[in-house]
């Protein structure tokens, strides 16, 4: 247990500041956008004014000069003077502090009250919490300004009343937001884990919930401050806010308005100040929200229909002359022909290629499996084929032909029809691949309406028919149900049914049964099998489960670090695999015959980070057969003449101790740490 720590600690030390700087970098990146920079600068200016203007000019601003009463703009008085001859420009500047200060104070109170009300349900428990939530809901329904005026009457006309009024008017919305965010976090497992660990409710709130909802709250408080500023100006303008002799922008605006026809500058100057300060707060908040929102949506990484490189040099190769690396043994017509497919994402340290030169072909009705650990690029390969790789990602290939059509060349539109009808994709999580707000039948029907131009009614009839075809019981009734009313297996069937709305030639199934129970998994696999044999549909089945692939597929592609390292008949997976990775992968799956007295075999080390591909064979650091050559030269995927392909310098050699750690637990621990 003591061998490995050395190499891990520098990693921690290095990673620690990275995290901090990542958070700082996120805020900095907000300031780098034009809106963010402008808003930030404006906000800084406003705050500086609020602090320093009264110190510098408050005396001058209060100097009464009866000789120059109600003057217009001039070189001496930039925006003129008021009815006591005081300089209005300076008064607007000096009023910044009171205006901003009061707005911030009101916001602060609103935030505190909102936080207390919003987190109360968490602290009080279910029943009392529900009362608070109901109260907040009612308060939210009241228009804010109306509430403010109402409070101003109660608390009395004046500064205190106005601050409290605006604070209490803003609090419910903030409480609602806090409650929603907190409730989301409170449902997560780590909160449950902390509860089991005996963490009290208050501590739970302070240590687990609030830090995880802090960012959106700060953003909303900033925007709220802008709102409070405007409300405050409004109240003062109405005479419900700041009272003479104090003055804020709203007050100045009111004073100036009486003479707006004579010299409008007196009213315009405070008006402009209000707008500028309000904008500064709101824009800054929005910019930050956008910056933060952007980063989270990037990290969640949902695939969006996006771009294959449009400027690709079209390699219209004639059908013959295919490279020898690809077995041309796909019987009958080729459905999918992939040559040298790569997917590249821009990374902080140069482009990252999670898929590196994948080549394979699928014949009509053939079932091909793709196995590999997570991060091996298997799902990305599927997405690239379906043209579903997200925007910064770039798909290149020497050839990517589906049904003889080059799907990389040309626009999305030209392929939509082809992919929409002849290509079906089944994702891992059928819950997220259906729109939860629409009925299943309609979602299926939409496919036919879009791609086959069917009428609504006929399309729905076909949807019911297809649901029946995928053995959804009581298809007619279930077509009218929403996705959440379907069980996991049923949703997956419906998803397959959606693929069958057209006449698919290829079904790409990305971990279709991973989220399902074994009994249901079997049903779904049986269904895929019967669909395949009934209509001669090819299947590309991507799975981390070697056993599933071995059962369903004719041929298996084993992927590691973005490359196909072995291509072999599924029947030979357990017996005749030649790549050490394939053998290790098969060995790690516990089956019903695994020896109970020995530790499970594991693959030592960790999968390769796509950003740091080693120069030689990517598997070499984990490989028991690795030699010097392996760490220097990357072996090519070579066809042995029988259609089996393998990329290994030591293909077929048997390792003396194929990663069975036996009695040495150290070998196990190394596995995770390295």
């Amino acid at each position, binding site marked *: *247990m003591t061998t*490995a*720590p050395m190499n*891990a600690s520098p990693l*921690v030390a290095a990673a*620690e500041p990275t*995290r901090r700087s990542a958070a700082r970098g996120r805020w900095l990146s907000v300031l780098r956008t034009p809106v963010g920079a402008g808003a930030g600068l404006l906000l800084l200016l406003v705050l500086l004014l609020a602090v320093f203007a009264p110190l510098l000019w408050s005396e001058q601003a209060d100097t009464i000069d009866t000789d120059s009463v109600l003057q217009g703009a001039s070189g001496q008085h930039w925006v003129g003077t008021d009815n006591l001859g005081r300089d209005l420009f300076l008064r607007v500047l000096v009023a910044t502090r009171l205006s901003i200060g009061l707005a911030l104070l009101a916001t602060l109170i609103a935030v505190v009250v909102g936080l207390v009300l919003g987190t109360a349900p968490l602290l009080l428990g279910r029943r009392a919490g529900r009362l608070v939530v109901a109260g907040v809901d009612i308060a939210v329904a009241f228009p804010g300004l109306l509430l403010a005026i109402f409070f101003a009457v109660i608390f009395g006309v004046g500064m205190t009343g106005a601050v409290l009024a605006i604070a209490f008017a803003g609090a419910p919305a903030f409480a609602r937001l806090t409650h929603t965010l907190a409730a989301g976090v409170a449902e997560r*497992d*780590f909160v*449950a*884990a*902390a509860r*089991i*660990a*005996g963490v*009290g409710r208050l501590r739970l709130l302070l*240590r*687990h919930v609030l*830090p*995880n909802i802090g960012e959106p709250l700060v953003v909303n408080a900033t925007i709220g401050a802008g709102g409070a500023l405007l409300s405050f100006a409004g109240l003062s303008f109405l005479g419900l806010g700041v009272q003479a002799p104090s003055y804020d922008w709203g007050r100045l605006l009111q004073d100036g308005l009486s003479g707006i026809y004579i010299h409008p500058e007196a009213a315009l100057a405070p008006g402009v100040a209000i707008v500028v300060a309000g904008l500064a707060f709101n824009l800054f908040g929005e910019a930050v929200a956008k910056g933060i929102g952007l980063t989270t949506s990037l990290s969640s990484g949902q695939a969006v229909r996006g771009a294959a490189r449009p400027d690709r040099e079209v390699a219209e190769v004639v059908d013959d002359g295919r490279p020898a690396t690809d077995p041309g043994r796909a019987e009958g017509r080729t459905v999918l022909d992939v040559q040298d497919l790569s997917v590249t994402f821009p990374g902080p340290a140069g482009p990252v290629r999670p898929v590196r030169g994948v080549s394979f072909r699928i014949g009509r009705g053939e079932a091909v499996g793709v196995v590999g*650990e997570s991060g091996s690029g298997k799902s990305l390969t599927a997405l690239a084929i379906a043209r579903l790789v997200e925007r910064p990602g770039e798909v290149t290939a020497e050839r990517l032909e589906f049904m003889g059509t080059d799907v990389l060349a040309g626009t999305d539109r030209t392929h939509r029809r082809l992919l929409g009808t002849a290509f079906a994709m089944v994702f891992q999580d059928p819950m997220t691949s259906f729109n939860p707000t629409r009925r299943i039948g309609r979602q299926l029907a939409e496919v036919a309406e879009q791609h086959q131009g069917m009428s609504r009614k006929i399309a729905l009839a076909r949807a019911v028919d297809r649901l029946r075809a995928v053995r959804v*019981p009581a298809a007619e009734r279930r077509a009218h149900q929403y996705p959440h009313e379907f*069980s*996991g*297996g*049923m949703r997956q069937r419906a998803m397959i049914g959606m693929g069958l709305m057209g006449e698919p030639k290829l079904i790409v199934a990305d971990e279709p049964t991973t989220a399902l*129970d*074994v*009994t*249901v*998994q*079997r*049903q779904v*696999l*049986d269904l895929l*099998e019967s669909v395949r044999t009934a209509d001669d549909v090819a299947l590309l089945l991507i799975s*981390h*489960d*070697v*056993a599933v692939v*071995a*059962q369903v597929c004719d041929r298996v592609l084993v992927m590691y670090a973005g490359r196909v390292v072995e291509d072999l008949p599924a029947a030979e997976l357990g017996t005749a695999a030649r790549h050490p990775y394939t053998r290790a*992968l*098969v060995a*790690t*799956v*516990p089956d*019903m015959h*695994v020896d*109970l007295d020995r530790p*499970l*075999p*594991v*693959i030592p080390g*960790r*999968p390769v980070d796509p950003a740091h591909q080693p120069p030689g064979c990517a598997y070499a650091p984990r490989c028991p057969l690795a030699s010097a050559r392996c760490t220097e030269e990357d072996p090519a995927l070579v066809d042995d003449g029988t259609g089996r392909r393998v990329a290994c310098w030591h293909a077929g050699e048997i390792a003396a101790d194929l990663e069975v750690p036996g009695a040495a637990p150290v070998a*196990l*621990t190394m596995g*995770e*740490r390295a």
Partner: protein
Amino acid sequence: MSELRFSDVSVRYGNRRRGMTAVDGVSLTVPDGAVVGLVGESGSGKSTLARAAVGLTPLSGGEILLDGRPLQHTSGPRPVQMVFQDPYSSLDPRMTIGDSIGEAVPRGTRAADRRREVARLLELVELDPSRAAAFPGQLSGGQRQRVALARALAAQPQVIVADEITSALDVSIQGTVLNLVRRLQAELGTSMLFISHNLAVVRYVASEIAVMYLGRIVEHGPTAEVLADPQHPYTRDLLAAVPDSTPGRPAPVAADPALAAVAAAEPADPHSPPPGCRYHPRCPIGPLVHADRDVCRTTEPSTDHRHAAACHFAPAGRTLLRVAD
């Protein structure tokens, strides 16, 4: 470590009109120092049972006994700890793993002792103690699951409930976590309720197996016996559905249309469990295949069978399972 006993435990969600009974009168004992594997499909109530054991879900009937005494959830770390399925959501992303583990160390421990305890636990789960300052985002899934295990152990639990702890992990990493569980169990003698849908995994870890279907335990016995000679048809179906790495086509769909229909039947809806034996709509030896077996539709089977199998047509056996030998 101690014995955890579920005695006629029921958990109901929702109100009287629109609710569901997720766990329906379950009696199950996790003997001192043993690992009981709980298998069943999603919706069978196994996770609910786990959450009930740690007090995250209130019981609506029965009781849970720890060493014969009703489980009480007072302040401080609970005596039954849980490891969750998804290591990506069970660790607070804003907290270092050291803090997460330290939080579960019983209150009143001095800071230095707490730190030492965290380091010891990290070492116990085969992680470098210097990584205590790392955030979960810097760890792989397998490493996070180790941290989650360490946190459960930090509370000095009497029983650990492991809810599908390897199903979110890659196969190559699953092995390391399972090996760790086995090692810890052997070293510490932890009593454990090990929940998984993967029979091969349960077989490797557990000494006893309990099969759950729609809120009930339908079979329970020593792992080797249950797997070698399953008594309940559901257990048999579960076993048959395990994909075998020996290649070949999936078993051909049964020629008998009745059997085929049963095999393709949808999992029952826990909101409205069928009357009689809950498995009868999917049962290959039930009323849909054998027309004369109407008893399955009407009468709930007793568990007076071998492996306490809740099936009318299972061979008779001991009435009660061994009560702590």
